[in-house]
């Protein structure tokens, strides 16, 4: 924030933007795209203490997103374009006569063009005690921080005033914070703006089933406060009283036009700064208004982000003297509210004359679908509750006569003559991404003319799918269809031997109980690969699938048995990690990182006796390096004898479950994290998966075990455990996402069972949970639907597969040292079993030893990463 008294008018004309929300940021991007940031000085006055963030996704803060995650502002962008951004310093007065804006800090900026993007403020009904302690609104990150703090320290019950979109999100957030949550809605149904009576009923049922108490058709008359002035309840219009510790007002928003009023700009009767079709205020040609503060030329104030973006583009174009106009926008919306799909588009309420309805309703399944059809068969609009899969296609067809009968569009798959109407049937003018106004033709062009071959490339090229993201699925279908149409073979096959993906091979192996690689290759491999020897890509991948499913498909659970031995990567084949000079490292399992002094001494003695280099790993265990092949069984025998087993440091398998010391010792701990880590490590040990699996358990929110950087991480709460998934460290760090909160021990284990088995079932080869979660359609929401809500009905199967793995676990080291035939493979030379490999040599370093490398004949050129720990 600057306190400069006067910032003068430079040689370049100045554009001042008041407000840095989503629409403001979009306006800046539009200025930059048109080159206006180079020719103009651009000054931004922002009231909030942080630059623009994604307000649409605000609620995701409660599911683990940080304010930084929500940010929409790339500070490089601001810097590169020389934009002067002042946060925490709102505009206070506008002097239109002398064209000056004064900020709260006292800074005065001269403008040539002024753009107001002040947004809106939450409407709070004028009821007694509406400002009491415990009353909140739901609009900014700061509001959410305040709600969170109050809910955690002072409340067990919370009520939300308003059953619209934000109200439902707020209620879900309160429930997530552990409160008993109520929703009070004045209208006779939830989401009255978007859905009709039937849709509201389906929604009510689903929301109530989630444990939220819904009160519709009642208004709030008074907030009741206790002696300390804090909220204790609310009086409702039906005479009843609702006891609650906090109230969140979410009863709609009003345009923030105070600044405009004070400076004499014309505002509408019900608020909103009046603008023309170019988004220029009707009162002053030097002043524009965009977004939720503007009253558009069609007499409406738009509270959605997509029309706001369009207005931002229009204003920027007008300033650049290009032709553009904003005459109104489509109010279609698709949301996922508390896990329920809700969508409405076009003339959702059937206000057109003589229009007809086609309705499909199944209150048992929480489904409601309505299409509004014109006399001539034109699709005018519709409402979808519970399943909005068809939204992208239907919205694009709005205004035209769809090529199939309307009823077939709403009937569920499998019922009667339901048809899946793909996006390929859409005309080129159909808008696919309404946030960025991208048509199907533009997306096809990206593939055909700009050689984009993937969804991320198309997103970058066209901006489609980078707004609310609801069109990404349709985008993917279009890209695939277009690639196929232009003759580009989209080969999703695992490798040159199989045309199937890893997921498809998993399904084949499981369904047909195929338990050898050769059988799978000869029956399901590509034509020219059948009967061959496969390759180094599919062999370990199929070996891993067979190992994961071994007890279920009747394969040996021992990876060195029979044909399985020939499928394993070198590390798995030798049950140790190959190092650069051909020696191996050995890592015994130390569950949860807990180890007795006796066992520590054993490790020390073994390392000393075999002359091994020792190092503590990042996973709370001890790695012993420099063992020759023929020493491995001898080392294992000593370890097994002392009660150790394989730590699977060599496998695409569960590695370790780290832990902090937890409640037992730590002053801050709230659960026994060590015990949980040991339990989990012993449960999932030996589980072969598409890639390595790492985990950690923290005993309190201080997170000393770094659980949020793990494939599955657990953090203790006062009430149980929070489960995070999809975290990663390494080269592409990713914070894990919260999957479920406050779980009991049994609930936690059951959820992890399902999560891991679903991952193993659907991930690609060498795809960590973090990339898997980002790749699979629907992302985290889909995974939550499947493993928490059991939307695919497969949870029982996932659990039983895991139960079979747990029951069938055996230690690979112990098994190997007791099998003379397998032991014979652990030699450097088949014709000289007692001779060590002379290439493996060592030289001393820092009181231990290190590999003495043979001279390299060629430079290093790695083909594929092969990190081992």
């Amino acid at each position, binding site marked *: 924030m600057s306190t400069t008294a006067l910032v003068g008018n430079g040689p370049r004309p100045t554009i001042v933007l008041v407000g840095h929300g989503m629409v403001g940021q979009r306006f800046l991007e539009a200025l930059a795209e048109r080159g206006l940031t180079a020719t103009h000085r651009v000054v931004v006055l922002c009231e909030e203490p942080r630059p623009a963030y994604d307000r649409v996704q605000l609620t995701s803060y409660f599911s683990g997103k940080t304010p930084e995650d929500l940010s929409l502002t790339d500070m490089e962008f601001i810097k590169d374009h020389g934009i002067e951004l002042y946060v925490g310093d709102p505009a206070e007065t506008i002097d239109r006569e002398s064209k000056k804006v004064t900020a709260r800090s006292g800074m005065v900026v001269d403008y040539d063009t002024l753009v107001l993007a002040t947004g809106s403020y939450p409407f709070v009904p004028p009821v007694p005690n509406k400002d009491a302690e415990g009353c909140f609104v739901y609009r900014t990150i700061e509001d959410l921080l305040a709600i969170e703090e109050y809910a955690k320290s002072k409340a067990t019950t919370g009520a939300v005033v308003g059953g619209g979109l934000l109200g439902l999100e707020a209620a879900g957030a309160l429930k997530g914070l552990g409160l008993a949550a109520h929703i009070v809605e004045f209208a006779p149904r939830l989401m009255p703006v978007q859905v009709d009576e039937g849709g509201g009923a389906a929604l009510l049922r689903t929301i109530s089933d989630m444990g939220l108490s819904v009160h519709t058709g009642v208004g709030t008359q008074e907030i009741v406060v206790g002696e300390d002035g804090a909220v204790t309840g609310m009086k409702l219009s039906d005479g009843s009283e609702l006891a609650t510790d906090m109230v969140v007002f979410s009863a709609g928003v009003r345009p923030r036009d105070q600044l405009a009023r004070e400076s004499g700009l014309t505002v509408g009767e019900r608020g909103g700064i009046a603008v023309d079709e170019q988004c220029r205020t009707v009162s002053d040609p030097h002043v524009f208004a965009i977004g939720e503060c503007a009253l558009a030329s069609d007499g409406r104030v738009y509270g959605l982000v997509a029309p706001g973006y369009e207005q931002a583009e229009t204003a920027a174009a007008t300033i650049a003297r290009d032709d553009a106009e904003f005459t109104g926008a489509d109010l279609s919306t698709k949301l996922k509210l508390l896990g329920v799909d809700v969508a409405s588009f076009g003339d959702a309420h059937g206000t057109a004359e003589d229009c007809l309805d086609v309705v499909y309703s199944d209150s048992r399944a929480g489904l409601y679908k309505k299409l509004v059809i014109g006399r001539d068969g034109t699709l005018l609009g519709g409402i979808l509750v519970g399943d909005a899969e068809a939204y992208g296609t239907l919205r694009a067809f709005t205004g035209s006569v769809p090529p199939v009968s309307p009823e077939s569009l709403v009937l569920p798959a499998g019922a009667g003559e339901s048809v899946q109407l793909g996006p390929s049937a859409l005309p080129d003018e159909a808008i696919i991404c309404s946030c960025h106004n991208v048509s199907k033709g533009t997306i096809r062009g990206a593939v055909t003319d700009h050689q984009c071959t993937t969804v991320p490339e198309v997103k970058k090229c066209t901006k489609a799918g980078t707004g609310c993201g609801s069109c990404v699925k349709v985008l993917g279908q279009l890209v695939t269809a277009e690639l196929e149409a232009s003759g580009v073979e989209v080969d999703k096959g695992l490798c040159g031997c199989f045309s199937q993906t890893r997921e498809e091979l998993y399904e084949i192996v499981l369904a047909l109980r195929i338990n050898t690689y050769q059988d799978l290759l000869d029956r399901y491999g590509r034509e020219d690969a059948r009967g*061959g020897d496969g390759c180094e890509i599919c062999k370990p991948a199929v070996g891993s699938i067979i190992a994961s499913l071994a007890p279920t498909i009747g394969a040996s659970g021992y990876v060195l048995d029979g044909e399985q031995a020939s499928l394993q990567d070198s590390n798995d084949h030798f049950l140790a990690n190959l190092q650069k*000079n*051909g020696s191996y490292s050995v890592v015994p399992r130390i569950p949860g990182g807990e180890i007795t002094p006796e066992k520590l001494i054993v490790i020390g003695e073994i390392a000393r006796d075999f002359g091994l280099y020792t190092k503590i790993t990042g996973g709370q265990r001890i790695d012993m390096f420099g063992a020759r092949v023929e020493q491995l069984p001898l080392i294992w025998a000593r370890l097994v004898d002392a009660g150790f087993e394989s730590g699977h440091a060599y496998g695409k398998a569960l590695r370790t479950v780290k832990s902090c010391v937890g409640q037992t010792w730590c002053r801050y701990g709230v659960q026994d994290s060590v015990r949980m880590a040991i339990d989990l490590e012993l449960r999932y040990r030996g589980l072969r998966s598409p890639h390595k699996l790492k985990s950690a358990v923290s005993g309190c929110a201080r997170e000393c075990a770094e659980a949020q950087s793990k494939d599955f991480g657990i953090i203790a709460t006062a009430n149980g455990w929070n489960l995070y998934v999809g975290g990663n460290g390494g080269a592409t760090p990713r914070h894990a996402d919260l999957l479920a909160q406050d779980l009991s021990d049994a609930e936690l284990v059951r959820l992890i069972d399902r999560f891991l088995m679903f991952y193993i079932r659907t991930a690609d080869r060498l795809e960590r949970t973090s990339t898997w979660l980002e790749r699979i359609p629907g992302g985290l929401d889909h995974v939550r639907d499947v493993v928490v809500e059991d939307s695919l009905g497969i949870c029982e199967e996932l659990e039983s597969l895991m139960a079979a793995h747990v029951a069938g676990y055996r230690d690979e080291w112990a098994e190997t040292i007791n099998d003379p035939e397998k032991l014979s493979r652990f030699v450097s030379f088949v014709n000289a079993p007692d001779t060590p*490999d002379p290439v493996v040599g060592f030289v001393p370093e820092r009181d231990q030893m290190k590999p003495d490398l043979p001279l390299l004949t*060629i430079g*290093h050129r790695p083909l594929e990463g092969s990190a081992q720990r």
Partner: protein
Amino acid sequence: MTLALETTDLKVQLQLNDGEDSWFTVCDLSALLPGRGVAALLPDGRQVALFRDRSGKLYAIDNRDPFGGAAVLSRGLTGTHQGRPFVASPLLKQRFDLETGVCLDDDVVRVATYEVRAS
């Protein structure tokens, strides 16, 4: 390379020089698992990696990975690429043609090959 008959008495032999009769016996054929390799130490200290594919064919190449320097090619995974048998080094995954020794990922690099038979 010779097609090996499935008999337990058979020995795997390597031809050391050009001479017809200088076959060096390495091990029993049964010590070679289809799809996996073993390493053998020659009298002059050279190391050879021996493989057997699923049809029973035998291959022998130098055991040393020319990229990484370690003698580990016998521990790589084998496969078929465009009809050619290969082994992928366990160090950094470069593939070597088992019949010619040529690296499939960098054709200026090749490892030595040996005649091998079961008899």
